[in-house]
């Protein structure tokens, strides 16, 4: 799944070393081995299933965030969109008894509308996406807690059933714990396949890379900037709304605050996985590696004896090291004689 190819770099091997996927894969492997050596509990059925379970929701968020990043934007509003969709679906469909597809659909539509607002502001006025989504986050969470007075709320029966449903169950004879593989992971697989197709086999997908690489060139090449940006933010909003409903199901309860802060994890995961914050680059494979690394770290640091207090320090350090390596390579490339220095610090 290559991004737009680097034309002046004919050597394949060297090109692969420039990518971040190999590094992040190695880091992930090392971390898993370290946890296994220290605790002996990493490569057990129930731990893997637990990881998959805690991975599902952030991974879907990452798909949306990645599209936005590739297009040269950034979206910090998806936790707010997801929470608002989750709450509205739980609260106003609470005696609905039919199939869960309707709950998911309503969640996705709500998300789509909110994402559409982001998209309109970014595409029509060309405001920095960071500011727009910060602003709409404030509005959405204000509506959630102010106008709707959100608090913990039970989820409707179909969502409860979805949360209880399992593909299989993994039992650990040593610890006596067992974990259920959630059905929602199928949805993640489906979305991954669909997004892969979108990015690599459709013109819209190429357009997303193109406008992230160079919006002016993309427009001259005939891509409709407004339409593509609207599409990206609507898509990512719809994913967020859908994920909100899934989250509610998996928790068996609607906690309107517990997605807060997820935006940082997901942006970090995407960037670790090689999605460029300045646009034009990113692959689903890399991003999935990134979010897996973040999840393993959050779940397993305690297994290798790192006190919980240190967790945030580690997260911060990983973000900085992960983004620093590729940024430094790019910076050195730019500052070679003849290369035009681009402004640092510009998002």
């Amino acid at each position, binding site marked *: 799944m290559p991004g737009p190819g680097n034309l002046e770099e004919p050597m394949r091997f060297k090109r692969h070393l420039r990518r971040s996927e190999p590094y992040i894969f190695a880091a992930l492997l090392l971390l898993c081995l370290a946890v296994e050596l220290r605790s002996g509990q990493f490569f057990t059925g129930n731990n893997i299933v637990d990881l998959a379970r805690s991975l599902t929701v952030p991974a879907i968020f990452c798909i949306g965030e990645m599209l936005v990043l590739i297009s*040269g*934007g*950034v979206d910090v509003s998806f936790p707010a969109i997801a929470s608002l969709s989750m709450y509205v679906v739980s609260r106003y469909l609470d005696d609905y008894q039919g199939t869960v597809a309707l709950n998911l659909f309503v969640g996705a539509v709500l998300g789509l509308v909110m994402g559409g607002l982001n998209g309109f*502001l970014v595409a029509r*006025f*060309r*405001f*920095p*996406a*960071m*500011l*727009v989504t*910060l*602003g*709409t*986050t*404030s*509005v*959405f*969470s*204000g*509506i*959630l*807690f*102010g*106008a709707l007075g959100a608090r913990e709320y039970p989820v409707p029966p179909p969502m409860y059933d979805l949360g209880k449903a399992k593909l299989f169950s993994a039992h650990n004879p040593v610890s006596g714990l067992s974990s259920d593989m959630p059905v929602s992971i199928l949805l993640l697989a489906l979305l991954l396949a669909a997004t892969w197709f979108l990015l690599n086999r459709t013109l819209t997908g190429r357009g997303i890379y193109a406008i992230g690489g*160079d*919006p*002016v060139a993309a427009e001259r090449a005939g891509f409709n900037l407004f339409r593509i940006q609207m599409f990206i933010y609507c898509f990512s909003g719809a994913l967020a709304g859908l994920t909100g409903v899934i989250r509610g199901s998996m928790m068996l309860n609607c906690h309107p605050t517990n997605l807060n802060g997820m935006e*940082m994890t997901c*942006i*970090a995961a995407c*960037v670790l996985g090689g999605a460029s*914050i*300045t*646009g034009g680059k990113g692959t689903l494979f890399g991003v999935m590696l990134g979010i897996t690394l973040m999840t393993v770290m959050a779940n397993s640091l305690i297994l290798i004896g790192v006190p919980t*207090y*240190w*967790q*945030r*320090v*580690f*997260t*911060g*350090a990983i*973000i*900085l090291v992960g*983004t*620093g390596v590729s*940024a*430094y390579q790019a*910076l050195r490339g*730019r500052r070679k004689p003849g290369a035009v*220095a*681009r*402004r*640092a*610090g*510009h*998002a």
Partner: protein
Amino acid sequence: MPETLSEPVRRPGFFGRDKNFTRLLAIFVLVFIGCAILKPDLFLKASNFQSMAKQFPEFGLLSIGVALTMLTGGIDLSVVNIGNLAAVLAARVMISFAPKGSSPEQTLTVVVAAMVLALFVGALCGAVNGLLVSKIGIPAILATLGTQQLFMGLAIVVTSGRPISGLPMIYARYGNRNIFGAVPVVLAVFAVSALIVGVLLSRTRFGAKLYMLGSNATAARFAGINVDRLYVLAYMLSGLLAAVAGLIMMARSNSAKADYGISYTMQSILIAVLGGVSPNGGRGNVQGVVAAVLILQLLSSVLNMFENISNFYRDILWGIVMIGVLIINYLINVRDLRRQSQ
């Protein structure tokens, strides 16, 4: 995002800035009159003004810090966390070296030393941000996102996640005092800091270079400006202001904690944008930011006076105000450009 995308209109000349400030002053006056009409009995009281003057300095200082980094074309998402880390360390020092029952002289020395330490920590954290942005080349929003976690994490490690209280009495006593019985100490601190940064930006070579860097980093580099050093200085200054804000928060609550004032991050970006600082760098000034701080404080105070309006409506309002300001600035830019081309 390249300039062509996020800023379709770039106006030459200096009048735009002044016009922006005039507009903000007009908004301030209108909001003030609006507040006075809505709640004349509660709003127009000396005690109300005094309590407002004690509230805004902390996020005002953070906003000026964020604005400085936005002038360079970056952003600082870690200001609140720098403030908290500085405060937490200062609190630790105060409690360890001036326990209850120490002599007044010793306590005073320790308190002053702890404050100096806090400022040093703030500048150091800012320098880390600046180095990550300039020497390593990480985009500012990511670098400060990472250090946000890092600094907050360190503060949690230092405090074990609990608030630190039991500070020496004199700290909060002097911090919450009024000078001449009318002007709160924190307001004076804010005014002096804002003045210093304002002078730095408008009257010194450092300020001129900073605007140049923000308008066009490549041109600044080719003009022989030490761009890396300038980035580091800008982020250091932001960290320093954040540490001052942290000390103020510590005086107000008489304690220090790893996650005080988290909502200030969003609010200080909003204020900087409202104050006319361009998120693409190169435009904006301290006067504008101060005016925006005051406007937001008025709105927030008057909203508080309506008991049946939930605090969360404030979030909706902030979001709408921020996007509204962006749209208004956009429309004004378009109109001005049209006039120029006629």
